[in-house]
């Protein structure tokens, strides 16, 4: 992989890729079992539920009975996922029948969770403790402000107030892949950086958390511990305050970082410290199916390529600036226009027309979202056309070969190049060919072996 892949589709893929021992260890925690359950596809959830209280393997045919003809593929996916996550173990008996049984730890923990609800190892604040708790609304604005602040700093380190908690080195880790430092005129967003900005908050959060976890070992933190803490966090109640004293030192440190991201709010009491999870934290384990936006859009796109964004956010203004010309900014409205220049600028930065269009669609104002299409067709067409304009010529690094000793060698070389899918052009009369640079080495070796 040459670059960090920006598909932070979901956290669970990451969990699934953990080694078996660690995975089994994870299932010791009730809340992780629960979070994993939530992340499963609907059919897999059903299978887990209906096998919760059976302790003998259930034949796969029995489960398949329930599935209608057009759901068979869904059944496969569900079973595969369950096995991948080691929730199901597969057994094949003598009659070549496959049966499945639930992972006993997982099963026991889920049973426990369902019956007793599970008690968080945190001490919730007593009502007699006199700390003024922020209202849910305040908490949400806090979380969003914090998150935006973080993002702004992420893409533009020189701007915005410095965040206390996240160390510059940590910041650099997050920026890895999103920003490039090669020019002297300061860091620039890379292609994936732009793509990152156009994703919705949840996906962005996943990406950052992912980076955070993959970086954990460098900080002497066990990723599995971190995962379990994060998942546990998502089961805390938004807006309730929890005492910090039950946490380990590592967890406390993590919490500080998370506070900078807006996942929790820290509050200092007279003698204890508290943390209050925000919506961002409790949404961490939201099941994988809803990667799409749930918040209301704010962009109105007109057929004359003008764009009005009802937003006060500086970040959103910056995001729009990626592909549109900001004309003026009113207290709660950003007026912008999509022009050829602004789009060329975006395409230069590696943003694709599809990304822009999806962004516009996902963020279109509720009034516009009701319309079909939500973005005027002439605008989407034009955006695509302008992109296509830039792609009239495709550049490929290539090597040119000529002066082949014989027709046979030439043809063998052509076939070889074709096999490697690197043949770009051939001229059999004059025995010349052009191949992609990537296979130049193989090609050279091949020609050497031929000449011997």
């Amino acid at each position, binding site marked *: 992989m040459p670059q960090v892949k920006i598909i932070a589709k979901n956290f669970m893929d990451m969990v699934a890729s953990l080694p078996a021992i660690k995975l089994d260890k994870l299932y010791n925690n009730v809340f992780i079992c629960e979070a994993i359950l939530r992340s499963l596809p609907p059919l897999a959830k*059903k299978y887990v539920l209906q096998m*919760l209280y059976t302790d003998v393997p259930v034949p796969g045919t029995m489960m398949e009975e329930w599935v209608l003809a057009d759901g068979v593929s869904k059944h496969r996916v569900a079973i595969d996922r369950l096995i991948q996550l080691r929730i199901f173990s597969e057994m094949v008996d003598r009659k070549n029948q496959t049966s499945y049984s639930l992972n006993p730890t997982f099963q026991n923990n889920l049973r426990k969770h369902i019956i007793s609800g599970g*008690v968080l190892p945190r001490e919730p604040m007593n009502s007699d403790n006199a700390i003024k708790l922020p209202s849910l609304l305040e908490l949400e604005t806090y979380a969003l402000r914090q998150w935006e602040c973080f993002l702004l700093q992420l893409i533009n380190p020189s701007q915005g107030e410095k965040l206390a908690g996240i160390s510059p080195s940590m910041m650099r880790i997050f920026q890895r892949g999103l920003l490039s430092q090669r020019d002297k005129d300061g860091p620039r967003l890379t292609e994936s950086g732009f793509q990152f900005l156009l994703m919705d908050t949840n996906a962005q959060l996943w990406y950052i958390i992912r980076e955070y976890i993959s970086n954990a070992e460098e900080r002497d933190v066990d990723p599995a511990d971190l995962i379990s803490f994060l998942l546990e966090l998502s089961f805390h109640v938004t*807006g309730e305050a929890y005492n910090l004293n039950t946490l380990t030192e590592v967890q406390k440190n993590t919490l500080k970082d998370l506070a900078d991201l807006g996942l929790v709010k820290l509050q200092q009491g007279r003698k204890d410290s508290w943390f209050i999870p925000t919506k961002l934290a409790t949404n961490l384990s939201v*099941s994988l199916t809803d990667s799409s936006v749930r918040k209301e859009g704010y962009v109105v796109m007109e057929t004359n390529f003008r764009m009005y964004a009802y937003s006060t956010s500086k970040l959103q203004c910056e995001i729009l600036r990626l592909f549109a010309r900001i004309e003026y900014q009113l207290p709660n409205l950003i007026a912008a226009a999509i022009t050829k220049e602004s789009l060329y600028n975006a395409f230069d930065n590696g943003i694709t027309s599809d990304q822009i269009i999806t962004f516009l669609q996902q963020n279109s104002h509720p009034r516009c979202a009701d319309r079909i299409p939500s973005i005027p067709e002439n605008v989407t067409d034009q955006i695509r056309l302008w992109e296509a304009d830039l792609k009239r010529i495709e550049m490929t690094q290539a090597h040119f070969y000529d002066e082949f000793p014989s027709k046979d060698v030439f043809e063998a070389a052509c076939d070889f190049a074709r096999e490697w899918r690197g043949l770009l052009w051939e001229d059999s009369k004059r025995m010349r060919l052009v191949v992609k640079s990537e296979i130049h080495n193989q090609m050279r070796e091949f020609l050497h072996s031929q000449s011997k």
Partner: protein
Amino acid sequence: MASVASKLYSDDVSLLVLLLDTNPFFWSSTSIKFSQFLSHVFAFLNAVLGLNQLNQVVVIATGYSSCDYIYDSSSTSNHGSLESSRIGLPALFGSLIEKLEDFITKDEELIKEEEVEDRIASSLLSGSLSMALCYIQRVFRSGNIHPQPRILCLQGSPDGPEQYVAVMNSIFSAQRLMVPIDSCYIGAQNSAFLQQASYITGGVHHTPKQLDGLFQYLTTIFATDLHSRSFVQLPKPVGVDFRASCFCHKKTIDMGYICSVCLSIFCAHHKKCSTCGSVFGQSKLDDASPVSNKKRKAPET
């Protein structure tokens, strides 16, 4: 069926409105203990809530003389008292238990003023169905984005005939709103109301055979969200008997006489409708041989 807006909200997010039968007469006469029943139901609710972070559960108690909301997972006030979490009850249901207790006390108070003798020991199903629909209607109106609602009736007591019209109206409202009514009947007889409710609204009706395995029934059948139902087969009643019974002898009949005013059904011709009192004309069949007919009918009436 699903609008574009609701698609944005993930497919399997559901709002489950559970109608809990708290009829004392039923619970004092049935084999399964109420506490055992509640255990199964609470575990089921917990499981449903566990399936998706955004899942929502509303519980409405259907009493003998009243009904009321006793739990709403979306409201913030129900995070249990410390007491209940200490004894290992699902923390979420602390307030549910308290409200249920209050409800039963109130229900009992209401009953004192009433005449009990003349009523079948049925629960106020029509009331709780209407309340469920009201709640769902409110959810529908709250915006484009909302979970997919469904109603689950956990009923044990027999149908209350005096509620017939109200129940039927609720059923048809649910049909219009495209809200399926699932029903799980744990009573001894068979509930025509619930059978019809599920049939008309496209829900699932099931009568568990082993009540000690109620949780298994609930999770296997009734935990299935609406999205999954498009590719999962759920048990269907073997057949729906559409034949009607006559009002006079309660016989199931193929052909009969229907009052053109109130649609009451009779197996033989009467002079007057026994339900609404409308006076019928001579039946056409009798016109042909009026004399003989009168003779024939005389001994009967």
